[in-house]
């Protein structure tokens, strides 16, 4: 059975009528119309669906929509805009990171949550923070360059 669930996404409230067990990903993509988190695996193994809930990077593909409660959801589109980009978005453009680009949400959203808490991380700390996220095109080298660049920008 469906129920009405109100979600705060990128600063706005949205009410969706959904199965409480439905993963947040489908509410974001289909009910709220935000295409930025992607379906990659549905198993929390790849990161393509990553969003923030209250600043914590979570995998929306396995997070029941009913579990979000009053948590503030931020997607990649809510992280920054061309006019007011997040340093990671700037760094991604500067370093020309993506190839197909389908993995972007995993890296940027996870790195953004990490860099918000950890100033001046070492390369080893960055790698550990990003462990397990997938990029199939093999842009690993550029991803690390971009995260280091963003970390430097964030002081």
């Amino acid at each position: 059975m469906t129920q009405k669930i109100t979600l705060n996404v990128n600063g706005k409230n949205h009410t969706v009528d959904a199965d409480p067990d439905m993963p947040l990903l489908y509410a974001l993509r289909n009910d709220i119309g935000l295409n930025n988190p992607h379906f990659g695996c549905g198993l929390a193994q790849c990161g393509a669906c990553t969003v923030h809930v209250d600043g914590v990077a979570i995998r929306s593909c396995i997070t029941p929509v009913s579990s979000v409660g009053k948590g503030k959801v931020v997607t990649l589109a809510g992280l920054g805009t061309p006019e007011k980009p997040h340093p990671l978005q700037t760094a991604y453009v500067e370093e020309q990171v993506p190839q197909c680009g389908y993995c972007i949400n995993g890296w940027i959203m996870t790195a953004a949550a990490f860099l918000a808490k950890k100033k001046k991380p070492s390369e080893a700390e960055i790698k550990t923070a990003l462990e397990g996220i997938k990029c199939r095109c093999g842009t690993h080298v550029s991803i690390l360059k971009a995260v280091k660049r963003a970390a430097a920008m964030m002081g």
Partner: protein
Amino acid sequence: MTKMEKPTTISRRAVLMGTGALVVSVGAPLGLDVLLGMNNALAQGTKPPLTPDQLSSYIAVNANGTVSAFFGKMDMGHGLFVAVGQIVAEELDVPFKAVKVYMGDTANSVNQGGASGSTGLQLGGKQMRMAAAEARRVLVDMAAEKLGVPADQLTVSNGVVKTIAPRGAMPKSVSYADLIGGKYFNVQLEWNKAYGNTLYAPGKAKPKDPKDHKIVGKPIKREDVAPKVFCQEDFCTDIKVPGMVHGRMIRPAVAGSVPVKVDESSIKDIPGAKVVWQQGFLGVVADKEWDAIRAMEKLKVEWSKVEPPFPNQAALYDHIRKAPVRKRAEEGKLAGNVDEAFKTAAKVIEAEYEWPFQSHACMGPACALVEIKDGKVNCWTGSQKSHFVQNGLSAQLGVPLENVHVIWQTGPGSYGRSDADDCAADAAALAKAVGKPVRLQYTRDQGTGWDPKGPASIHRARAAIDAQGNVIAYDFLSKGFSRVDVDTNGSKLFDTLAGQTQGVTLKSGDGFGVPAESYEFANKKTAWETIPPLLDRSSPLRSSHLRDPVGPQIHFASESFMDEVAAALNVDPIEFRLRYVKEPRDIAVIKAAAQKFGWDTRPSPRKGQTGAKVSGRGIAYSQRNGTRVAVIAQVDIDRATGKIFAKRFTVAHDCGQIINPDGLEKCIEGNIIQGISRTLWEEVKFDNKKVTSVDWISYPILDITETPEKIDFVLINHPEIPPSGAGEPSIRPIAAAIANAIFDATGVRIRRVPFSPDRVKAALS
């Protein structure tokens, strides 16, 4: 929908703008009527047919002077459209920013083969270069008529044609926009009547001499990165149309099994859920995506009992060894009489190598949207061969080709004949059955478990050595599953799961390959043999093209073997190669890589390393359709765990003329990382019933924590040699370079990929 301007909009505008008569300058040598007639023959408001012999099929000058280039290939993330834009801007003498490249839309481009064989620039770019050059020639001719000046006294800059005026005099000028803006070229090209990669249709113009290039060769950035990081650009997974429903497919737990009983009542509680069951084809649709997923999971299906179709994984290579040969071919540069030469050998070196099935394992499983409306079909797909999908859907749905519109939209990776083509055909079957547009997305286990696989193979090499330590004969044979068990695209129903599950007559193709190098031995034979597929229909182990099809496996073997021979002769691996490699550009990449790396000349293995952690370096080199690559890998090995860290790479790369060095570097970087991944981790696991590699745990790829510390590039530019492609060549020698580095570090030769920790540990113990 995407925020990018759709070319169809441009077409409509072009028609609207295309009615203005040309202004004739004073002193024109021809009468107005003649001139108008002539110009109308070149430019017109109605679009000529979208055929390969029409200039307008490739190039249009818009009313505002910008240029649209219509490309029948597409970018797989390497910035190909930037390079094509550079080529078009260069030949037309317009600013780079004035050119927009539209890719892979069957409504405005001709079939140039899609993304295929690293031919984006080699063949696709060549055609765009010729078309742009011809467009410039025609425009200058039009300007000559308009300005009343011979064409050879005109010059073009920033899309404006000017007279070459004496010092102090005002030149006469006319812009491309004034000449033809908003109208179509109506210029015939000399088409070779081929479609696909080999399509070629030059005009009368000669392209520029490379020494005059100003835009080609520049490191121009991709403009699609910002839209991607700001979520302004749609992937094929993001497209929605009114009235659309969501589809999911259901695959059998035992490969080859088909549904015999489907209990639709098991999903009756799910709103809008419907079953589509046609012979072996089984899918569900629902209005909401989550409901389609629930229906897929809940539907009760009874499957036919079949014999387990596969050998157990441990028996795979024995199966290949014993399997009947379906086709054999000797290819490459053959020399002398190998068998006779071996009889005279003082020493024979032999080895056998093994390569597993590998998956495209795209970042996301395939997705396609098919809409059938008023006898017309629209399909949005991430397939890297949209024009072939158009052919396939036309045949599958019985709709004339011109009524099938396939739109390529960036997918979640591709890397060859991935699951994308099957998905488009499955979506079409669902859409036809339910009478609504269907967006079909596969599941992760279908994406990894059911995509066409890179073929598994074994490779036997032997070398005959004379008493002086010279190689007098070389014999190399690959035996494996075909690279075209299913073909490289979805144009034929029998090559798709939709066709195979619905019983079409099969036609499995045969193809493999031989090492691409320039070793000259007095006696040399390189050959391949293909074997039948393990299961002939709807097999999750059907084989097809995976990035650099069969290249990594063949060159893992051939370049490992060259190292083995060098080691057996106690010769440095580079010195050994340089004794026999004969083509100057090949020698140049090997030497360039060695110099950049700081190679110390000595035989492998390295001596005097003790302790748990050892390191080594290895080289491998190969050609690919004109491109030459030498790679040196430096690896660390933890002997206790068997874990390999591919720490540093030096790549020397010669693909002829470099169009965009930054794009080229990024492209090579991806090849190296994916190459390390395929070498160290990737192996499709299966049992006798099914593929068991179904996610990122059971099909691991290279993790970010394993990123090499450093990649050095030597990009050798040959402006005088047309570009020969970079999308795949540098993945080719990676496995052998790593294997050779492991040997250098440990003295142990690993002849089976992947070099997973367990396997390495076992090999070292």
